[in-house]
C-alpha cells in the first residue's frame, strides 16, 4: 500500500505544518478530517486513508462527475526546484484521478530566459485565458500590479488563477486577485530561519558573507527582511561582504571567491538560494579552506531543498539549507485547485506550507520525502 504510506506521511507533515505555521495554515489545512470539516474538504485534504473512506470516495466521485480539469502551470524559470514542485503536484493529481474519477489536462510553460523574463509569463497566462483553462498556476518575477490586472481580467472570464511559491506576503492581501497563494513566508520561514541558524551555530559571534539573487527580486526582498531581523537579534554577527550571484552557481562561485579573497576571517556564507550556496561551497574548496565540521570551518547555508543540495549536505559540502516545502506546495496547489475549481469550495488567500532548516541531523527524511514526490507514478502534459 504505497499510496497509503505516502498519505500517512503527508498527514504527519500536515500536522507539523499546523503547529509550525499556526495562523498561516489555511482553512484547507484546518479542515483535515479529524477537525470536523466538510466531508469533501476532508477528502480533498487527503487525510482520508481509513477503510471506511470508500463510501466517501464514492460520494465525491459522484459530485465530480468525471470532470476534466485543464490546468496551466508556469514557473518563472525551469529548474530543479520547480521540477520538484511539479512532480509533487502530479502525485496528487494521480491520487485524485484514481479516487475521484476526475481527469487532468496539464500544460507546463515557462518563459525562456532568466528570472526577469516576465513578459513571457504574461503572454503564457493570456494564452491560457483565451483557451479557457479551468485553473492557471503562476509563479513569476513580474511586477505585482501588472499581474494582478491580468488576473482580474482572467477572473472576469471565469478562469481561476492560483499562485505558488510567490512572495505574496510582501503585498496587501486585499489587492490579490488570485483564488489563493500556495507558498511560504519568505521573511520568517526562510530568511529569518537561515540567519537564526547561522547565528546559533556560531554562538552569536562571527563574520558572514551574503550572496543574494538579482537586485529587485521579491524573493530576495522578503528573505533579506527576515535575515536582517535575525541579525538585529544577534548583534555579534557581522556581514562583512555581499554580492549578487544572480541565482546561478557559477556567479555564486565567482562572487564567493572574490569575497573570500578580500575577507580572510569568514565564519559563514549565506547563499540566498541553493545553487549560489553550492557555488560558495566550491569556492571554499578551491581556496583550500575548511568546511564546517560542527565546531569549526566555514558554514554554508542555502535555501530551496533540492535533492542535489541534500546530497551535498550528506557529503559535508553544504552545511544546511532551508527546505521551502516544495513538495507540500505542489500537493496543496492541486488540493486547492480541486477544492475550488472542481468542488466549488472557498479557501483562504494565503496558504503557507511548513519549511525547515535541513542539516545532517534531518536530511534523511527530507530527501526521502522529495524523492518520493519525484517518483510520481504518472507524468502529465507533453
Amino acid at each position, binding site marked *: 500500500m504505497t499510496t497509503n504510506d505516502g498519505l500517512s506521511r503527508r498527514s504527519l507533515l500536515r500536522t507539523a505544518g499546523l503547529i509550525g505555521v499556526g495562523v498561516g495554515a489555511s482553512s484547507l489545512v484546518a479542515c483535515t478530517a479529524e477537525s470536523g470539516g466538510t466531508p469533501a474538504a476532508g477528502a480533498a485534504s487527503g487525510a482520508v486513508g481509513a477503510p471506511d473512506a470508500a463510501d466517501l470516495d464514492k460520494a465525491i466521485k459522484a459530485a465530480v462527475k468525471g470532470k476534466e480539469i485543464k490546468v496551466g502551470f508556469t514557473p518563472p524559470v525551469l529548474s530543479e526546484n520547480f521540477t520538484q514542485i511539479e512532480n509533487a503536484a502530479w502525485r496528487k493529481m494521480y491520487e485524485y484521478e484514481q479516487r475521484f474519477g476526475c481527469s487532468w489536462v496539464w500544460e507546463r510553460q515557462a518563459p525562456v*530566459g*532568466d528570472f526577469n523574463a516576465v513578459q513571457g509569463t504574461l503572454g503564457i497566462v493570456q494564452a491560457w485565458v483565451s483557451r479557457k483553462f479551468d485553473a492557471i498556476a503562476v509563479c513569476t518575477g513580474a511586477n505585482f500590479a501588472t499581474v494582478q490586472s491580468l488576473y482580474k481580467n482572467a477572473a472576469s472570464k471565469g478562469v481561476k488563477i492560483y499562485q505558488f511559491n510567490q512572495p505574496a506576503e510582501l503585498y496587501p492581501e486585499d489587492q490579490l486577485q488570485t483564488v489563493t497563494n500556495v507558498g511560504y513566508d519568505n521573511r520568517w520561514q526562510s530568511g529569518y530561519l537561515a540567519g537564526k541558524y547561522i547565528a546559533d551555530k556560531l554562538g552569536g559571534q562571527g563574520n558572514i558573507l551574503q550572496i543574494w539573487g538579482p537586485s529587485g527580486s521579491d524573493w530576495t526582498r522578503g528573505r533579506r527582511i527576515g535575515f536582517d531581523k535575525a541579525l538585529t537579534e544577534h548583534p555579534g554577527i557581522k556581514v562583512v561582504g555581499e*554580492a549578487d550571484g544572480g541565482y*546561478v*552557481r557559477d556567479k555564486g562561485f565567482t562572487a564567493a571567491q*572574490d569575497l573570500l579573497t578580500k575577507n580572510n576571517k569568514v565564519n559563514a556564507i549565506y547563499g540566498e538560494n541553493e545553487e549560489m550556496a553550492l557555488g560558495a561551497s566550491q569556492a571554499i574548496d578551491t581556496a583550500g579552506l575548511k568546511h564546517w565540521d560542527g565546531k569549526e570551518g566555514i558554514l554554508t547555508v542555502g535555501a530551496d531543498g533540492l535533492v542535489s543540495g541534500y546530497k551535498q549536505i550528506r557529503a559535508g559540502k553544504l552545511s544546511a539549507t532551508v527546505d521551502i516545502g516544495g513538495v507540500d506546495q505542489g500537493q496543496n496547489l492541486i488540493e486547492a485547485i480541486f477544492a475550488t475549481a472542481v468542488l466549488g469550495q472557498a479557501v483562504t488567500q494565503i496558504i503557507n506550507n511548513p519549511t525547515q532548516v535541513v542539516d545532517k541531523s534531518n536530511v534523511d527524511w527530507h530527501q526521502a520525502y522529495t524523492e518520493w514526490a519525484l517518483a510520481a507514478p504518472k507524468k502529465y502534459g507533453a
Partner: protein
Amino acid sequence: MSTASSRGWRTRALQDPAIGILVLLAVASTVIAFIEPTFATRGNVTNIINAMMTISFLAVGMTVVLIAGGLDLSVGSVMGLSAGVAANFLADGIPMPLAFLCALAVGTGLGLINGLLITKLGVPDFIATLAMLSLAGGALLYWTRGVPILGYMSEPYYYIGGLRRVVGPITIPMLLVVVIAVTVAIVLNLSKFGVKLYAVGSSSTGALHAGVRVDRIKIAAYAISGFMAAVAGIHLAGRTTTVPPSIGSGYEISAIAAAVIGGASLLGGKGRVVGALIGALTLTLTRNIINLTGVESSWQAVVIGLVLILAVLANQTWSDLARFVRPRPG
C-alpha cells in the same frame, strides 16, 4: 639587427592598439592595489586567471571569426549545448574521451552549419548566428527539460574544470589556454590559412579576385569558433560542476566584447590572439574589482558598459596618437 628594423619594431609597438588597453589596465590595477590590499595577493591573481578561462577560449574563437569579417552570436549557446553533451554523456557512463569528442564534434558541427548558412545560402552572419543562438539554446533546454545536469563529476574532471591544481597555482585550463593561444597565433601569423583569413576579412572581393576560396576560409573560421565554444563548454561544465540549461546565456556578448577590446574589428581583417586574452582579462578584472571594492553590485552592468566603450576608445586614441607622433612610413 639593423637600426631600421628596430625602429620599425618600436613604431609597431607604439602603434599597437593593445598597448593602449594594457596601459589602462596597469593604471587601474595599480590604483586598486593601493585602495584594496587584497587585490594584489597571489590568491586573488590566481582567482582572476582561473575565472577568465571560459571567456578566453570563446574570445580566441570569436577573434578568428572577426578577422574573417564575420560575427558569431551563437558561441554562448553552442558552448552551453557542448557542455550539456559532455555532462550528460559522462553522467550516462560514457568514457570521458568519447564524451569530450562528441562535445567537440557538436560544437564544430554547429560552427560548420553557421558557416554554410552564411556562405552557401547567403544568410547575413548576424541573422544566421542569431538563429543558431535560439536553436542551440532551445535544443539544450528541450533536451534537459530545463533541469540542470548533475552527477557527472569525477576526479579528472575537477582538474579540467580548474578546481584542482596540477603544480603550484597552475591548472589544466591555464595550460590549455597557452597551448591553444600559441597554436592559433602560429596559424594566424605563419600559415597560408592565416594570410588568407586576414585577406578575406579585409576585402572579400579582393581576396576572391586573388583566387582565395572565400567561402572555404569563412566556413573554417566559423568551425574554429564552434570548436572553441565546445572547448569552453567542456571546461565550464567542470568548473561549475552542474550544467543549468541557461549556462551559456550572455557569453556571446562577453566574447565579442573581449575580442574587440583586444583590438579585433567588426569590419574584419584585424585582430590577434593576445588581444583576445587581454580582452578577457579586462572583463574579468572589472568584475573582480567591483566585488573586491564593495561597489554595489547593481552598478556592475553600468561599469562594464563604460569599460567596454573606454577600452575601445583607448585603443583608438593610442593608435591615433602613435600615428601622430611618428607618421607611418609609406
